[in-house]
């Protein structure tokens, strides 16, 4: 679909009325929060100064105008998602904020090195727990953590994934705490989504405000697909010359279908569903109008339990019968590998500093949030006594479901949470309430900019002996005032994220 060009040149002369109605005139700064654009004294930080000047020359109504155009562009392009758990499932656009987040090259360097370090450590951890299990024998990570995980796949024991890679694509969620340091909140190494928003946000922002964008030397994000394809091709099965790569999707009713189609399109590969593939003689083929075509690498956006009804859940209509046998034989690469979910369990997260030290003999570059395990009696006691100052998370839920934030609970709710934890301590971990940094975000209801909490999801892709971190990432915004949960399924929005060259 052709997108209306809605660039509004910021060249109007400024009238007095405009100045009174300046974009940031009603921005209220809570000094207890870490504001990404203002320092403690209320001065705009250096990297934001240019942006602040340009935006500051304009009125809220100019901004509203641009913002609504950007929104309709998203809807027209079909960049939507669905929220599960609502009674009436409907497509929504991922709310987008035109005021970008900027990360300078020094800070980015920490994030990038830290993301690679974690992804590599997780990969070595996965290799180990599906082979010799040394980390368990050396008592660094308790055996129960693995055996009690629903995501540990016995069938993966002893399998050597092509190129030795399990977590080809890792989505690492990072926040900036009020001490100004970066912390990892969680590692997503099953089918992390959201990268298409990063690219679409950039496209939308450039269209709306290219006059602004050009004042900064920002790294491109549109090179994601080519790098992804390159790295997926590097983990091709043995004996394959030029691999045939496909993206497999659960179908158009999946919340991330837009992304699946986007990635296939931009990589220039086929987007398939389970019924488009079949297995014969332990090789995977795609049905085409010219007859069967062998498939070598599958970027799968289907969960482990659904990939092969003959090996895992028999009621899965999404997968390909016989796919796992082909994988086990080494005739096809699955990215990410089956069974990676065991390592992004929130209980495993708490061992990440030890895991990094054990395999890489390095200190973690990115901090971990201190975590209390409710499965340990002394820590359980602490958690039960301090619920009001902790976040309680179930270890195996993704997407921000089932999280309780202690200082937001009533007395009755605290008692209810206590009962739930006591009933199933292994299911919960607790962390101190982190104060996510805030970023000025345009809020429809008040027609002004307000502080909103943000995080950052980075995308790391690993191939055979090489890796790539997308220089950008998805800055997610918690749109409800004071809300700390930024997941899109919990009503979050997003911002374009600029990583500056020197």
């Amino acid at each position, binding site marked *: 679909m052709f997108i209306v060009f809605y660039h509004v040149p910021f060249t109007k002369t400024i009238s007095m009325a405009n100045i009174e109605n300046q974009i940031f005139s009603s921005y209220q700064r809570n000094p207890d929060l870490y504001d990404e654009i203002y320092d403690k004294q209320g001065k705009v930080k250096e990297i934001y100064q240019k942006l602040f000047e340009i935006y500051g020359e304009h009125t809220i109504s100019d901004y509203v105008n641009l913002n609504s155009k950007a929104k309709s562009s998203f809807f027209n392009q079909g960049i939507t998602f669905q929220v599960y758990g609502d009674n009436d499932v409907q497509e929504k656009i991922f709310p987008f904020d035109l005021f970008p987040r900027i990360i300078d090259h020094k800070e980015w360097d920490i994030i990038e090195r830290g993301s690679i370090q974690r992804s590599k450590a997780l990969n070595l951890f996965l290799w180990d727990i599906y082979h010799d*299990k040394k980390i*368990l*024998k050396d*008592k660094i990570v308790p*055996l129960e953590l*693995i*055996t009690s995980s629903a995501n540990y796949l*016995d*069938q993966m*024991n002893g399998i050597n994934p092509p190129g030795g890679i399990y977590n080809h694509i890792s989505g690492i969620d990072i926040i900036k705490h009020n001490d100004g340091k970066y912390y990892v909140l969680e590692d997503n190494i099953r089918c992390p989504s959201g990268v298409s928003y990063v690219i679409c946000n950039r496209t939308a922002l450039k269209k709306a405000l290219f006059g602004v964008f050009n004042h900064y030397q920002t790294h491109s994000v549109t090179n994601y697909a080519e790098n992804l394809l390159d790295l997926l091709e590097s983990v091709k099965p043995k004996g394959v010359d030029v691999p045939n790569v496909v993206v497999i999707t659960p179908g158009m009713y999946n919340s991330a279908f837009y992304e699946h189609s986007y990635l296939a399109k931009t990589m220039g590969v086929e987007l398939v569903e389970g019924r488009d593939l*079949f*297995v*014969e*003689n*332990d090789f995977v083929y795609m049905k085409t109008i010219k007859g069967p075509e062998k498939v070598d690498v599958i970027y799968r956006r289907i969960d482990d339990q659904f990939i092969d*009804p*003959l*090996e895992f859940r*028999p009621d899965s209509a999404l997968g390909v*019968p*016989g796919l*796992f*046998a082909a994988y*086990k*034989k080494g005739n096809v690469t699955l990215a990410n590998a089956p069974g990676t979910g065991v390592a992004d369990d929130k209980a495993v997260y708490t061992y990440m500093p030890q895991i990094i030290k054990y395999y890489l003999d390095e200190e973690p570059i990115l901090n971990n949030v201190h975590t209390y395990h409710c499965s340990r009696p002394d820590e359980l006691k602490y958690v039960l006594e301090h619920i009001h100052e902790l976040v309680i998370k179930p270890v195996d839920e993704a997407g921000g479901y089932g999280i309780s934030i202690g200082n937001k609970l009533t007395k009755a709710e605290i008692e209810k949470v206590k009962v739930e934890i006591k009933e199933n301590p292994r299911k919960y971990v607790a962390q101190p309430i982190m104060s996510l940094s805030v970023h000025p975000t345009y809020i429809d209801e008040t027609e002004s900019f307000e502080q909103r909490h943000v995080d950052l999801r980075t995308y790391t892709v690993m191939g055979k002996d090489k890796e790539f971190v997308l220089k950008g990432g998805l800055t997610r915004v918690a749109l409800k005032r004071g809300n700390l949960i930024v997941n899109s399924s919990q009503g979050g929005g997003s911002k374009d994220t600029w990583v500056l060259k020197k």
Partner: protein
Amino acid sequence: MPNQYKITYSTENTYENWVNNAYWQFLIIPMENNTQHHIDVEFSNSLFAVNDFSINGYGFKTIRVHPKKKFKKINFEAQFSFIKDHIDPFNFPLDINDSLAYKEIKELTFKINFEAFLRSTVLTKLPNDLDSIFHFNLSNTIFENLQELNKWTFNNFQFKAGVTKVDSKLTDIISTKQGVCQDFTHLFCAIARQNGIPTRYVSGYLNQAHGLLGDSQMHAWAECYIPQIGWKGFDPTNNVLANTNHIKVCHGKDYNDCSPLRGIIYSHGKNKTTHTVKVHSQEQ
């Protein structure tokens, strides 16, 4: 004396309506091991669809069939012939150090190495309110305790077909005290694992010529890992140790890892399936 075995496995499936798409995976081929060898496999289906020989996620041989045309009826027939060596289940060293064996099963490395067969699964989960229904006597050897458990299961539960299903939970079996070989085996596995003994569910064929109880289709028994001895087969349905009459196909944590036939049929309406297994043996 080695036995020359011939096993015929046949199944007939009829459907009320046309089936446009279907997949089957058979896990029925006797495995090759140090007592089963020279295995010859013949497999055919009435639609002349390709029989795809493969290996499943646990390393056992399978046959996959995916007909390319619609059908209302399909028959499968398999014939296996092989040599089974004579097994003397009591042929193991007698000079076992019991205290060392009991010590070994408590060690972390042991628990990690045998983790999959110490874990409780949906089908081998003992009811929570039940502390333990069978206790090991630690003054006896592990082998003796397992023999005792074999006998206990056999004596306290009645073999009766039709009261349980393949996905029946132990809670039901313990309350009705009835079941078939899968149920006896699941219960045996659960209790042995609760006592720290790695135990795997075994699926295979039973030579019923000697009056042994079993299904007319496939049989199930258990294998336990005993330090200094190795894996030993126990058949709680018959209160015997696995012997020359037990022909192993595969093992796993429970029935779900071993189900002989998995099928995905894209159709609606009624269907009818019959299975027959014939085991024929000849001492050489």
